[in-house]
């Protein structure tokens, strides 16, 4: 156990130490030391994680110290919960994190703030690990806000550009709205269970016997958590920050805004699945939210020209899938998709990054084309990624998405099924569009592109392999596979097993065939439409809606931001300035005016004074008379 404690501590602290180190000494050490150091640190962290992964059977709790004592019998500890759910995600975080660190050493070469970048990146890994491993909701919240902070810092990494700073702020603030929900959820859960420790809460739920009041608060908690999750995972209505977050360096987009941080929402819901099972309605909300987001984001992705924006909407859409799965009671499927998505979306982002790097920070796909010649490794790696996300068998994306589609189609909710399948088709289409526009046709840009350095291509290839083979992790038993992940996670989350029968087998084959057909159709359509792209997109008034992202940013701006600003102004000038200060100043000037008027009594005429004496006396006399 002591070893486990040490490992856990090291695993989390190494990135933290790295973070301070690179920030403090980044400039002094030089790029080489920093890059080697940062990668080594992360690999060390990864190894620790691996050690824990194999060291833990079932689940283990590692307690460090008491953080906040709430009352005599409740406190928050700095403690970790090591179980399949957390360890799996921890491995992904550190593993993919390491790869992306390697990639970033190439990508960021020559940046004046090299050290700072790695410092933030390491800090992110620390926060993410806190999020994943924490045993208590508050610890989780620490990571939750920490990753938000790092996301903020990294989005506005190139802060000289005002837009980047604003995008970072937007990300943080929108995330904060989600965090607010999370916070309320923590309070509500504390209200019900008197504890913030996740295992304690879960065991209390297993015991059952909640009163109506407790049920009410647990419902509130669910809503809070959904808000939190939708903020972090960019689901409607809080999805607006993710596209803007692409302002950050591409490795950041890959690591934070595709592979790890944004999946925290899914992780959270999986973690507290029993709570949501208690409140069935909330799962329904999650499912519809996910489905809607998936469809919505896919429809927007089709009309984006910025390669990273396409990927960003694609991420939102894929996260929608995960939410859909969780909402329909298939957390393993969601988790599986989360993993494969981490691989192929990281791959796609890094590939895009490689392209952008090669083209000297050109992100507009209209200015690309025919790059398969110049960047062969990138091209092939990207191809794997595109095929994976489009759901072409037997790549990982196919397997995981198929599981989700299977869940949806058997759930008996037609609307959701239609959404899911439509999204699958659209996904294939916009990914095909991206692929074709980037790598085929004529080159439409200005700069000559070169292949990226080894540090980047190595990572691409590794991720491509993972994306291709990731499906094996949970290859359905129906098809003669072994559902590793399902077995592994079964102790933590509940998912209905698919019964093995010939009927089910037929159904699944039919589904697989249909979905891969959809994928192929999408890709094919894209190929036909964009093979000879001449700069003309679909033009129709209806499409403007998609292009402009359904005007949601504008809507929020008008409905909320401007109103709040207006209210702020009114409160300042109106309430503070006019009412309160006006009242006080009025009191002041009123008194002075009175003083000035009364000063007029001071005429210097003694007889007038005598008149006043006389008046005063008469008043007294009158008073005396009436009192009598």
């Amino acid at each position, binding site marked *: 156990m002591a070893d486990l404690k040490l490992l856990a501590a090291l695993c989390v602290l190494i990135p933290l130490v790295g973070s301070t180190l690179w*920030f403090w000494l980044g400039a002094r050490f030089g790029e080489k030391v920093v890059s080697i150091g940062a990668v080594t640190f992360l690999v060390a962290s990864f190894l620790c994680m691996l050690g824990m992964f194999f060291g833990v059977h079932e689940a283990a709790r590692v307690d460090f*110290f*008491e*953080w*906040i*004592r*709430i*009352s*005599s019998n409740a406190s928050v500890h*700095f403690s970790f919960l090591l179980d399949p759910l957390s360890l799996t995600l921890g491995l992904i975080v550190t593993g993919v994190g390491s790869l992306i660190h390697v990639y970033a050493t190439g990508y960021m070469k020559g940046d004046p703030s090299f050290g700072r970048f790695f410092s933030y990146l390491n800090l992110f890994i620390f926060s993410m690990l806190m999020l994943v491993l924490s045993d208590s909701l*508050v610890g989780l*919240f*620490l990571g*939750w*806000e*920490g990753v938000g*902070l790092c996301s*903020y810092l990294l989005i*506005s990494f190139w*802060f*000289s550009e*005002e837009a*980047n*700073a*604003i995008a*970072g*702020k937007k990300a*943080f*603030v929108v995330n*904060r*709205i989600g*965090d*607010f929900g999370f*916070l*309320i959820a*923590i*309070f*509500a859960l*504390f*209200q019900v269970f008197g504890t913030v420790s996740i295992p304690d809460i879960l065991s209390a739920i297993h015991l059952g016997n909640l009163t109506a009041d407790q049920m009410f608060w647990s419902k509130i908690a669910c809503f809070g958590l959904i808000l939190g999750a939708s903020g972090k995972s960019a689901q409607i209505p809080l999805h607006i920050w993710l596209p803007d977050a692409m302002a950050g360096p591409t490795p950041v987009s890959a690591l934070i805004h595709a592979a790890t941080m944004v999946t925290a929402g899914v992780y959270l819901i999986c973690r507290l699945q029993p709570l949501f099972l208690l409140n069935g309605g909330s799962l329904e909300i999650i499912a519809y939210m996910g489905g809607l987001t998936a469809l919505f984001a896919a429809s927007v992705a089709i009309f984006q020209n910025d390669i990273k924006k396409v990927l960003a909407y694609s991420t939102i859409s894929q996260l929608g899938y995960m939410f859909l799965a969780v909402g329909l009671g298939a957390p393993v499927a969601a988790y599986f998709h989360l993993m494969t998505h981490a691989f192929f979306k990281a791959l796609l982002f890094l590939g895009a990054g490689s392209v952008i790097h090669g083209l000297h920070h050109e992100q507009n796909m209209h200015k690309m084309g025919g790059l398969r010649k110049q960047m062969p490794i990138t091209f092939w790696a990207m191809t794997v990624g595109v095929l994976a996300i489009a759901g072409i068998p037997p790549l990982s994306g196919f397997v995981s998405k198929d599981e989700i589609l299977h869940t949806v189609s058997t759930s008996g909710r037609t609307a959701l099924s239609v959404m899911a399948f439509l999204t699958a088709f659209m996904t294939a289409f916009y990914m095909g569009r991206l692929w074709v526009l980037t790598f085929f046709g004529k080159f439409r840009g200005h700069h000559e592109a070169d292949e990226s350095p080894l540090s980047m291509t190595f990572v691409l290839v590794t991720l491509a392999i993972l994306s291709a083979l990731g499906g094996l992790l949970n290859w359905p038993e129906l098809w003669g596979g072994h559902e590793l992940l399902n077995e592994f996670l079964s102790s933590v989350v509940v998912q209905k097993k698919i019964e093995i029968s010939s009927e089910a087998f037929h159904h699944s084959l039919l589904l697989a065939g249909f979905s891969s057909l959809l994928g192929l159709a999408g890709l094919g359509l894209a190929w036909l439409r964009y093979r000879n792209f001449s700069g003309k997109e679909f033009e129709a008034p209806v499409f403007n809606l998609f292009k402009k992202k359904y005007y949601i940013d504008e809507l929020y701006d008008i409905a909320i931001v401007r109103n*709040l*600003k207006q*209210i*702020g*102004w009114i*409160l*300042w000038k109106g*309430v*503070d300035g006019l*009412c*309160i*200060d006006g009242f*006080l100043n009025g009191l002041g000037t009123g008194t002075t005016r009175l003083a000035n008027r009364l000063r007029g009594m001071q005429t210097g005429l003694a007889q007038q004074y005598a008149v006043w004496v006389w008046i005063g006396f008469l008043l007294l006399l009158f008073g005396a008379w009436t009192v009598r």
Partner: protein
Amino acid sequence: MLNENYLLVLFLFPFFSTLIVALSRHRAAAWVSVAMAFAFFVLTLIGFQVHELRYSATWFGNLKYGLYLDSYSYFLILLSAFLTLISLFYSVRVIKEKVAAYHALFHALQATVVGSLLCDDLVFFYIFWEAMLIPMYFIIGIWGGPRRKYATLKFFLFTFAGSLLMLIGLITTYVIYFQQTGTWSASFQTLRDYFHMNPMNFEIQKWIFLSFVLSFAIKIPLFPFHTWLPDAHVEAPTAGSVILAGVLLKMGTYGLMRFAIPLFHESAEYFAGALCFLSVVGIILGALVAWRQTDIKKLIAYSSVSHLGFITLGIFMMTEAGWNGAYLQMLNHGLSTGALFLLVGFLYDQTHTRDIQAYGGLAKSLPWFALVTVIIALSSIALPGTNGFVGEFLILLGSFQSKVASNGWVILAGVGVILGAVYMLHLVQKLLYGKSHSEKLKDFGWREWVFYVPLVILVFAIGIFPEWILGPVREKTTAMFNLFSTFAAR
């Protein structure tokens, strides 16, 4: 162990240092003053293990000259000593005229603050509470900005009016005690124990409580009594702002926790809803208005209104966790807002403008400044891991379980958490990010690091290991709430 003489020393030391500083020669005054402040800080630190100390002597007729130290007062004294030390250290370079008077006034302020924190006697407390105004009045009035006359007048009259009303309430309290028992005492402990056993007529109690709350609310400042604060802050010299925000505002919340509510907790429960409403309005108004400010100091001042709203919410909600959180948040706000004012001062000394538009891209030219600013801003928006979070979390968590007022207020206050991020990041963005157009500024030198390092360390030390403060404070709070609950049981 320390005995009661320690209290007397603690109480008298600032007076002594005021005298020393006032009498020292112009050149040396600043350093003498810093040395004295440091000595006081060390003296305060010595008392760290102290849980409770009492000292009493007759002061005048009915009034006992009681000194009383417990964890509630101790940490605020520590905060005051610490902030006074760093703000005086900061002032050494900045203030060049009337040095001795300036430093002496700060020590006098310290003396009054320590006095009102230490006293057990209500009248004694009141005297220091009033006297606190005088040094601050001169600090702002003499070394302040161009509109200092208006600001000081407003500050003074506002606070004076409130505290005089409290005086009436205070006298009424102990006169009632006299009329019921036949003995005179204004000692808080005596009065509390007595009124705990023999509750006062509720109608009277309500009014007395309101008079106390009014006075404290003006000092805190609670909406709608907050308008003096932005004006005072804008005009005050940097060190004055630090102490004003860091220490003086805390006296209001301290007064609530120490005097108003323990004495009249029935009324506190009766008015909880209304007061929570005011707190929440303060939180949201402060945040929204802060967002629209272009003057950095005004922004921070309004952010104080918002933060103090959280503290009062935690207090008025009357839960143990809320109180612990509120107390911790008092310290946190002192540190983070103090630090923010120092940071603004650092800029102001070089550029002589507080207009937010005049800055931009400072992260490039002043990386260390930027780092500290971001850390402090994060502490201010209560990011977990920083001190702000622990306080705010406990406040909200505690308040959520409150029985005296709806927890809908907490949800509204939570909106304030969001808005907090909005205005603070707005400030960070405008100052640090964007195109750089202030290249010639100098970054931190050793003088700055001397106090920013401890500040930053404290931010994390309280954020990650809050127990060294929370532990002693909790003991006190638990004892107090036990008293309330026995009352309620009866």
